[in-house]
């Protein structure tokens, strides 16, 4: 196996990015960025602050229009599409934003029902039941359902966001720093939750993280963003064999070694 960010010809990629270029004014964030995501894997995306991890995710999900390049998600082109054209794709992915991005005027259960309401005409009873088991699957206690987002703790906001992301049984899950701001126990529980959900629900996961423990615990492959592109993508052992200075510093720093030992 190589540490190339692209898969060999012919292998199926859930997300395929080629030659992506993003820039804000003079400042170039990504240039000639390539990346593939395999079906069923949990891909961790790491990189220093300002290397455009979130921008990469926003480009893939269509919130950010790239200057150049092609992005295919589930074999559909994402770049240059009108917002309503890509609606079919939106049904097949779930996104957990960094701050949860729950709708503050709706309860947690109503938040989970939003995507259901948008796409399907289900009976209210069935919708409430679906919201219930999604909330339970995301590891929230039943009394979280009727609460408003402002009444939730940080960890519960993430779980509620995850429940909403799972509402439509997505094939593809995007997570933007899911464990940031959680205490180590909550973070570990969240890692386990993601891992078990992936196994049970056949998810493919695109995971942005800073958390070395998360990388070691649940990621099948890790993509490293540096120098405006994905410099390498592979298992952590493969990455450790490279002599890229940032990768070495990241994984062989004191925190990296501590996480590896754990």
């Amino acid at each position, binding site marked *: 196996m190589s540490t190339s960010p692209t898969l060999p010809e012919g292998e199926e990629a859930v997300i395929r990015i080629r030659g992506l270029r993003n820039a804000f004014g003079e400042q170039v964030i990504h240039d000639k960025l390539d990346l593939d995501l395999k079906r069923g894997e949990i891909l961790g995306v790491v990189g220093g602050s300002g290397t455009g991890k979130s921008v990469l995710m926003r480009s893939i999900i269509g919130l950010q229009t790239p200057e150049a390049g092609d992005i295919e998600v589930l074999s559909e082109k994402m770049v240059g599409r009108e917002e309503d054209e890509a609606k079919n794709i939106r049904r097949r992915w779930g996104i957990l934003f960094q701050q949860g991005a729950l709708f*503050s*005027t709706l*309860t947690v*259960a*109503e938040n989970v*029902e939003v995507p*259901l309401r948008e*796409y*399907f*005409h*289900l*009976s209210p009873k*069935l919708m*409430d*039941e*679906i*919201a*219930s*088991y*999604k*909330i*339970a*699957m995301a590891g929230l206690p*039943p*009394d*979280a*359902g*009727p*609460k408003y*987002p*402002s009444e939730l703790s940080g960890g519960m906001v993430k779980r509620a966001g995850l429940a909403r992301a799972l509402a*439509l*049984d997505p094939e593809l899950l995007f997570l933007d720093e899911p464990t940031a701001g959680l205490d180590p126990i909550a973070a570990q529980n969240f890692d386990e939750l993601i891992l078990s959900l992936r196994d*049970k*629900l056949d998810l493919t996961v695109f995971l942005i993280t800073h958390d070395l423990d998360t990388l070691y615990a649940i990621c099948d492959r890790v993509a490293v963003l540096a120098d405006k592109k994905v410099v390498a993508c592979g298992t952590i052992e493969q990455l450790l064999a490279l002599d890229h200075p940032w990768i070495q510093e990241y994984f062989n720093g004191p925190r990296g070694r501590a996480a590896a030992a754990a």
Partner: protein
Amino acid sequence: MATRGYRKGDEHSSDGIYRCVGSLTIARAATTEREIDLMPDGMTIDLSGVERMDTVGAWLVYRAVRDRGAKVEGASREVEGLLEQVREADKPVRVIPEEEGSGFKRTVGELGEYVVDAGRVFHGLLGFFGAVLIGFWNVFKRPQQRFRLNAVVQRFDVVGVRALGIIGLMSFLIGVVIGQQGAVQLRQFGAEIYTINLIGRITVRELGTLMTAIMVAGRSGSAFAAQLGTMKLTEEIDAMRTIGVSPIEALVIPRMTAAVIMMPLLSFYAMIMTILGGGIYVWVDLGIPPLTFVQRLQEVTPLRDLWIGLIKAPVFGFIIALVGCFQGMLVEGDAEQVGMRTTAAVVQAIFLVIVIDAIFAVFFSSVGWI
């Protein structure tokens, strides 16, 4: 891939078998639910033909098993796994907070809460007023260290200078409207000349200040509430406190000072613009030349009217800034609160301005300043 669920036999038959073929997913959930509802209790659900199932499909099957005593046949390993998934996650969750009591009881309860709330807000406003006075006193005692000149000047610009355009335009148009309405009515008595009295006195005594106050409340009072509210949400105000900077001194007093000083200036400017608008109207419509207009204006509008108008202005400015900052400081929790508090700031400020204007009117007429 089409999903086809069909019944074998009719719904009364005891050996009803519900066969699922193809994909049993959320896309077909509504139909599947209806079809399962039509089946008799104790039905058999045959899943051997299912090619794709998601958790919603699994939930429908699981629910039939749980509530209707259905039996499942022909489930593959994956399907079994999904059924197990939803069984584990079956914990009833309420969707919206529970509402207590009957409609009438709730209404009375809400009314009571509203009154208590209003009392609490008024109480809080008085407390805030006190805190602001103490803040002013502290600044007054040691102006060298405590007075934030830059902040105040910046507020002058935002509250005063940048409001000139909109307040000028508004006032000019109001002048035209007063002139036009006055002329139409007074013409019936052949007393068009009194239009000038109307324009002069109503503008200087009441409208100039009042309209300016309403505009400042909408422009700056709301901005104060939104700014302080956002700073409260992002914990900037907490950070300030922990560093030892008083938010009252750093944030509230510059805004209050700016509003108190800018209101009379803006009011005076508004009066001039209104008179200008009225003057141009009477020149065009009634043919009264500007010179005559000014002369007549001087004769009929006592200087006292100007004092009455200008005395009120700083008071209004104070109220607007006080309410705006107070509402901003009340923000807690989420972004929705910022909007709510901003609205409350404008509504309460305009309400209080009109109440105080009425008190002033009674006061001035009882001291004989008619």
